[in-house]
């Protein structure tokens, strides 16, 4: 005769399962289990439920990465700000920040310290001081893409540069470097690093005393501007004001008013020349790119920012200068794909490959732009030629776009490396290639554009192919990305080999095992130019798939 478990029975069994019964209750449960198969089944099923719950919980967090590193310092900063919003002083010191990390990656400096100023009177507030108080949008600073323009929500906690001292200011003028942590163990720099003599800097600092009040106030204003010139977006990538070279010139101009003499003057003159050269080189490229990609820049108020990756490259760059790796411009960083009505989302973002700001002229640039009205985006080719593929794929391209962009790090002219970034972190690096001519940079740039457009199209097809399950589509996207990396390698190898053959000069050897056939690589590149499905991505087709027509 079957036994119907009462609520009390179940409660006892549940507590017994959790080890939370008293001695008397345990005895009662044992007796029940002996006489009731239903009780035994219930207990067994409770174990199964737990196992399934644990399994579900483990899957839910797989691949989830908090968009910003949550740190004590950041929490403290946000907590202090909340305190300020509820009536405390704006710079209320919650707790003294001890032991802030100074590790290789740039971390958000969330400690609230007294705001430092050169002068007692604050100058007219700059846009950076008209800081929007963020409402806990995330530790990495929120990026909101509105009508194609990505805006930064800036607040004091997102400033990476610590309060600028006089020494920092002079160093910035002389050497083009800005500290990005309060310990001053890390810097973002332009131009030649560490070449100025310490005495020169000290002399300049001493002569600052000869400046009149307006001069000091002007420096103060610049110090505040510099404070907000670099803001953190993510751990090792930060947004830099696009006119940073201009700011350096401004600082130099102001310092020249101090009527320097001797070595200090000589050094400052040299710094000016270098800054002017930098400005020509960096700003020209930035101006060009800003002109083409205004919609994709980061903005905070009136200021334009570009993303840079802080220099974590371990190998010593060739040449004398450690150039700023200026050049990441990325689009929307959020979850990359949303396809209605399946509501497919990938927790792992697409690889983003930041577009290079090469010093040479660039050829056309195509991009998928985010469509605001839910319709498929159109291709926008800045060289004036609209790809036919755009028209053909208008109905199948995803409504939400995602970015592919490539970082090209330039070292002192001839050296180049291609880095494929996955959500602003490096996922693939080529060896360094010695480029002997600027036209090579142009060539690489244009080929990279073509290849990324091709990959974008291919990924778009994968995403919208509803005949395939989400798992299959996710796998194929990852495979396509891997294949793209391999193709990049082959392309670079072919260029390097072609150049080496023409000049008969030793070049950097590509990694062993890579194909050396330039013609074969050219064929691959031709195929890349064709925005139909690249044949070398056939490996993405799983055995149980019907890949005809889609690939």
């Amino acid at each position: 005769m079957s036994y119907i478990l009462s609520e009390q029975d179940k409660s006892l069994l549940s507590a017994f399962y959790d080890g939370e019964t008293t001695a008397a209750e345990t005895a009662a449960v044992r007796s029940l289990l002996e006489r009731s198969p239903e009780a035994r089944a219930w207990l067994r099923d409770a174990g199964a439920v737990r196992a399934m719950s644990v399994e579900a919980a483990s899957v839910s967090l797989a691949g989830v990465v908090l968009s910003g590193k949550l740190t004590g310092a950041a929490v403290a900063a946000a907590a202090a700000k909340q305190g300020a919003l509820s009536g405390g002083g704006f710079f209320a010191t919650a707790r003294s920040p001890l032991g802030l990390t100074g590790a290789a990656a740039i971390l958000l400096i969330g400690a609230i310290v007294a705001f430092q100023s050169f002068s007692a009177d604050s100058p007219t507030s700059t846009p950076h001081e008209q800081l929007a108080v963020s409402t806990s949008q995330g530790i990495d600073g929120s990026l909101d893409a509105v009508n194609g323009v990505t805006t930064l929500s800036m607040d004091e906690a997102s400033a990476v540069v610590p309060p600028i001292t006089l020494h920092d200011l002079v160093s910035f003028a002389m050497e083009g470097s800005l500290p990005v942590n309060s310990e001053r163990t890390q810097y973002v720099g332009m131009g030649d690093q560490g070449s100025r003599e310490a005495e020169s800097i000290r002399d300049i600092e001493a002569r600052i005393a000869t400046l009149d009040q307006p001069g000091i106030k002007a420096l103060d204003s610049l110090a505040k501007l510099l404070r907000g010139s670099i803001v953190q977006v993510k751990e090792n990538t930060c947004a830099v004001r696009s006119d940073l070279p201009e700011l350096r010139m401004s600082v130099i101009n102001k310092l020249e008013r101090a009527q320097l003499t001797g070595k200090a003057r000589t050094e400052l003159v040299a710094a000016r020349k270098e800054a002017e050269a930098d400005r020509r080189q960096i700003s020209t490229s930035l101006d060009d790119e800003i002109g083409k990609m205004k919609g994709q820049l980061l903005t905070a108020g009136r200021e334009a920012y570009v993303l840079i990756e802080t220099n974590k490259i371990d190998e010593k760059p060739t040449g004398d200068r450690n150039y700023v790796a200026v050049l990441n411009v990325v689009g929307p960083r959020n979850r990359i794909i949303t396809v209605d009505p399946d509501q497919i989302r990938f927790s792992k973002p697409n690889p983003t490959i930041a577009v290079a700001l090469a010093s040479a002229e660039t050829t056309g640039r195509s991009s998928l732009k985010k469509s605001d009205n839910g319709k498929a985006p159109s291709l926008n080719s800045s060289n004036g030629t609209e790809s036919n593929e755009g028209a053909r794929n208008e109905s199948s391209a995803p409504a939400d776009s995602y970015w592919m962009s490539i970082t090209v790090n330039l070292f002192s002219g001839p050296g180049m490396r291609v880095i494929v970034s996955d959500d602003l972190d490096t996922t693939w690096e080529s060896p360094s290639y010695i480029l002997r001519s600027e036209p090579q940079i142009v060539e690489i740039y244009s080929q990279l554009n073509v290849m990324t457009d091709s990959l974008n199209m291919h990924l778009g097809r994968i995403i919208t192919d509803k005949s395939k399950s989400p798992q299959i589509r996710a796998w194929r996207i990852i495979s396509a990305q891997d294949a793209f990396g391999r193709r990049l390698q082959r392309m670079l190898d072919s260029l390097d080999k072609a150049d080496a053959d023409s000049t008969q000069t030793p070049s950097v050897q590509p990694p062993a095992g890579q194909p050396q056939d330039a013609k074969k690589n050219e064929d691959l590149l031709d195929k890349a130019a064709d925005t139909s499905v690249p044949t070398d991505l056939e490996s993405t087709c799983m055995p149980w798939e019907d890949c005809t027509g889609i690939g």
Partner: protein
Amino acid sequence: MSAIPGSTVISGDAGTYRPEARITQTGPNKKYETDRRRLNQLDDSSLVAEAREGNLLGFDELIDRYRDKALRLVTSTLGSREDAEDIVQEVFIKVYRSLDRFRGEASFSTYLYTVTVNRCRDELRKSKIRKFFSFDDWFSTNDATELSEGNGQMLERNERVHAVRQAMSRLPAQTSMLLHLREIEELSYKELADVFSVEIGTIKSRLARARDRLREELLPFMQEG
């Protein structure tokens, strides 16, 4: 550093300036590593004490220990990963702000879970609807290798996971949180009673009812297994 005549220079950091350290470092910060190792050995109450005294690394350690747990609970309850991040951050901010008031009568974990549960309740009250898990939770894109092998097993697992989440989402919010904290985070009945401010007897009966309901909903998967 001397003050400039006619100006005020407040430079708390000038004393730490080290000209020779200008070059971008790519190596580890040894002091940081040492501190973290030390803190890693401390129990929660000691870390709370450290954080109270201004050592933010102490709070870092607490965050590291409980961030994922909090995220799991919030995700399980609210079903939205994007919201979950914000809420977890808010939870830690709230915990940090109330550290001075934390007396240690309950464990730090209990306190954190209490704050998290209350935050989830607030969120649910605001939205007034339960969010169901979206289709994307069926798979993890980190499992690309597994997807290429034994794909059928992955699909079965995903279906089980989906079923569990659907079943959990149909429970009353408090009950699902209770079940999560018991099954996943293995809180004791006493701790659960503290978190939910109810008697232990109530915890017992609610858990039993929750398990009973889940058992009924997930029976097909148990029979298959």
